[in-house]
């Protein structure tokens, strides 16, 4: 292994990346676009959700409750309907995400100190949205009932004896229920998958496809030198992108960063080795740029997107899928990211994720090294 030849390979590779508009776009624009996209676009906070209301009470009290619902800005009371059928129709055709039914005895029961039940019909085609909606509506109802209680107290001089017990669901780590705080750290895993696996999968395949590999392997440069030299620029660029994404997350989207920067860089470097090795391995096997890039997306980007716990909580997945996530390296990295960003878990306590990640890095690294030979077949 000659460090000089590794540098020679790396310098050539870097010049090629810098001269290729497509690679450059992926390196520079893609991370920013992904962070912004998931920060704003795929914001599962769902503000201004269309709601249909069937107010069977029709009193000032029920109107007051609806005003609270409206004021919460999570909901937008799209229509007040006069019967149950209109409500279900709205849910059926998707013009409402939720239907609220206020019972006919709403104000009457509240006047006598309750309890009373408001019905919320939630469109659960997207269980994630449904969960969030239920959370929101509970929040609004709790706030309202607290207000009713305090009014009762001031009017009667005594607290409500049989006040409905508020099921208080506290949200940890993300007190504002801002989903961006949950999501954005995970975007780093996506960015790295694209830089590490997708871009890298192209490099070896490109050399085979353009015929440059045949000449390259007839020179004294060793297989290991070719591999290291080719991966080095992507490693550096991937790490730089990680920092950029983290900065955007922290300073633009105000995602809390409670852990150590060193732990972030260390775990990112490990994950980078994983995806670079995968990209390299795929590239060696596929020998064509198109096939290589497709395989890279399917084996790294998609799992990082769907099975890493980045968007969808692993605990809510069907059991077989949960098992599969154990062999998805991105799972461990996303978990580390959330801990570093949101919980501030000390680096020493991250071993449950870092050990599997290190094993993946080692195994895939060896696999990639073994796969490439300076031979034609």
């Amino acid at each position: 292994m000659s460090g000089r030849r590794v540098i020679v390979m790396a310098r050539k590779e870097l010049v090629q990346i810098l001269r290729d508009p497509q690679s450059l776009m992926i390196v520079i624009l893609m991370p920013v676009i992904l962070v912004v996209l998931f920060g704003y676009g795929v914001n599962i906070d769902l503000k201004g959700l269309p709601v249909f209301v069937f107010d069977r009470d029709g009193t000032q009290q029920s109107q007051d409750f609806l005003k609270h619902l409206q004021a919460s800005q999570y909901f937008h009371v799209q229509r007040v309907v006069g019967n149950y059928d209109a409500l279900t129709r709205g849910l059926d055709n998707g013009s409402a995400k939720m239907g609220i039914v206020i019972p006919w005895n709403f104000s009457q029961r509240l006047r006598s100190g309750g309890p009373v039940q408001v019905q919320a019909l939630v469109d659960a085609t997207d269980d994630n949205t449904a969960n969030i909606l239920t959370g929101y509506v509970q929040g609004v109802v709790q706030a309202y009932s607290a207000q009713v209680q305090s009014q009762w107290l001031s009017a009667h001089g005594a607290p409500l004896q049989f006040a409905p017990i508020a099921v208080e669901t506290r949200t940890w780590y993300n007190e504002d229920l801002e989903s961006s705080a949950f999501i954005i750290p995970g975007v780093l895993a996506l960015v790295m998958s694209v830089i590490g696996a997708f871009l890298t999968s192209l490099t070896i395949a490109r050399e085979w496809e353009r015929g440059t590999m045949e000449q390259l392997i007839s020179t004294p440069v060793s297989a290991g030198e070719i591999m290291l030299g080719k991966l080095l620029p992507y490693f550096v660029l991937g790490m730089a992108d990680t920092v950029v994404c983290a900065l955007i997350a922290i300073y633009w989207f105000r995602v809390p960063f409670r852990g150590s920067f060193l732990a972030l860089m260390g775990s990112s470097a490990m994950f980078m080795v994983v995806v670079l090795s995968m990209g390299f391995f795929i590239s060696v096997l596929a020998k064509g740029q198109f096939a290589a890039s497709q395989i890279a997306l399917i084996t790294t980007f998609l799992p990082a997107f769907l099975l890493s716990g980045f968007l969808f909580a692993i605990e809510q997945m069907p059991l077989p899928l949960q098992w599969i996530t154990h062999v998805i390296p991105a799972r461990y990295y996303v978990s580390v990211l959330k801990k570093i960003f949101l919980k501030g878990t000390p680096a020493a306590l991250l071993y449950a994720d870092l050990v599997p990640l290190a094993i993946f890095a080692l195994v895939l690294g060896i696999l990639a090294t073994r796969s490439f030979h300076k031979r034609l077949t």
Partner: protein
Amino acid sequence: MERRAAGLIVVRFYQWQTMKDALPAAIEVKGLTRSFPGVLAVDAISFDVRAGEIFGLVGPDGAGKTTTLRMLAGILPPESGSIMLAGVDVVRDPERAKHALSYMPQRFGLYEDLTVDENIRFYADLFGVNRADREPRSLQLLQAAGMSEFRTRLAGRLSGGMKQKLGLVCALIHHPKVILLDEPTTGVDPVSRRDFWRILYELLAEGVAILLSTAYLDEAERCHRVGLLHQGNLLFCDTPANLKAGMPKAVLVIASRDTRNARKLLIGAQGITSMVLHGDDLRLVVDDAHTRMGPLKARLDAVSGSYDSMMQVEPTIEDLFVDAVGARDVAHG
């Protein structure tokens, strides 16, 4: 320029003639064999190339030229046989041999998104050529290639001939002892081709051994020695002059305004071993010129004006090759 180059070729050839036996073999191939699923690509061929010699591997597409060169370059393991290259056993230790050799694949193997200079530097660096050696060497080679003013141009923007010459410059930057060129002049314009050959001849003074493959049979005549490769077999291996002198047959050229018709008239005539349409001529290989010319003329005379002239010419490598391949094909069929 043309005359100087031609003169140089003559001089080099003369030098080679006088010293060839004293030169050590830079390439020694014995019983080299390689097959791919369903094809025996190279069938136990043996030959050697001496330092200071240009050896031409000639044959049609699919003859096994590229497979042979790849095995010699140490990038394709042979099934059996041995390759010694500048004293290194390529089969056993290909990586060590790579320091001494230079291989130019048939497809342009350089980076089109790097400039001429960057490509040269990349290869120089891989071979550990330092800057002090690289600069004068690349200057000299680029000048010989007539490319001095294109040093900052992207390789992808060069013409086909220029690309091949750049490939050669990159291949020569580290003073290799053995040069393997796979169809280096295919699709190259005549001027670049001439530059190419001049550079090759100048290199011989450095004592390198050059092995090149070509599908152009006229180019074979420029090589010191030629090996005719057909379906993985080395049919002949000698100097062009010896090959031609040793051809036991004669070549007749018939000029005609309708060569196709003339050809039709001659089908089935005795003594003809092969017939090829060659521009406005019909080239025949016959077993004996003296006894066959009369009957052949008589046969053509049956249709008036079917030909203008018929004469015997010196055989070329192409005649030899076409005849040999044709005869083999018949023998095989």
